[in-house]
């Protein structure tokens, strides 16, 4: 693990708002974020696992011959 000469692994944070990110941010559903923030970390991860299983079920259904 080597760092190129004259370079830090940690790039300086600019702190400047990125106009592209700001544009995307307008579409973020903050009600979902607030609901998630009200949950414990354990609940968030169990929810993620549940959604992963559901997504996998949908994918399999989509691949099944009709």
């Amino acid at each position, binding site marked *: *693990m080597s*760092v190129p000469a004259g370079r830090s*692994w*940690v*790039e300086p*944070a600019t702190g400047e708002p*990125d106009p*592209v*990110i*700001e544009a*995307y*941010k307008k*579409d*973020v*559903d*903050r009600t*979902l*974020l*607030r609901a*998630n*923030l009200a*949950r414990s*970390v*354990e609940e*968030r*991860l*169990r929810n*993620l*696992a549940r*959604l*992963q*299983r559901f*997504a*996998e079920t949908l994918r399999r259904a989509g691949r099944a011959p009709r």
Partner: protein
Amino acid sequence: MIDLERTLQDLHRAGVEFIIVGGVAAAVHGATRVTQDLDIVYARTPENIARLAAALAPHRPYLRGAPPGLPFRWDAETIRRGLNFTLTTALGDLDLLGEIAGGGGYPELLPHTRVFTLAGAELRCLGLARLIHVKRAAGRPRDLEAIAELEALREERGDPDAG
């Protein structure tokens, strides 16, 4: 799809030093996006590499996307000779990262982590501010929406420096 809880518990029980990054770290912080794999940054010490190799060996790691039958031996020597591995395992898809852009390796990231508990196991994930930083540094167009959500989360938490 990864069996998150089992993978994290197995790594923890084996004493592997690792930091959760990527989509699962985002979920820990409250992001709603669904990720199918687990990304971790692991410590590159010989002892930790040996623990990582032993912990994953029963789950038959193989290079994701590689043609079947490719000679690939999962052991400490393979990890030592490589750095970042995108693996498929019996538990699901797992990315093992020795370093990440904008963040470095395990020792550099460690001060920017937070500890949380999952089923009694104390685990580390990258803090929100550093997670945003490394996603921005990666510069991948597909991360733009994820970064926007993480920045919105930071605003919702009311702490601009939230780690």
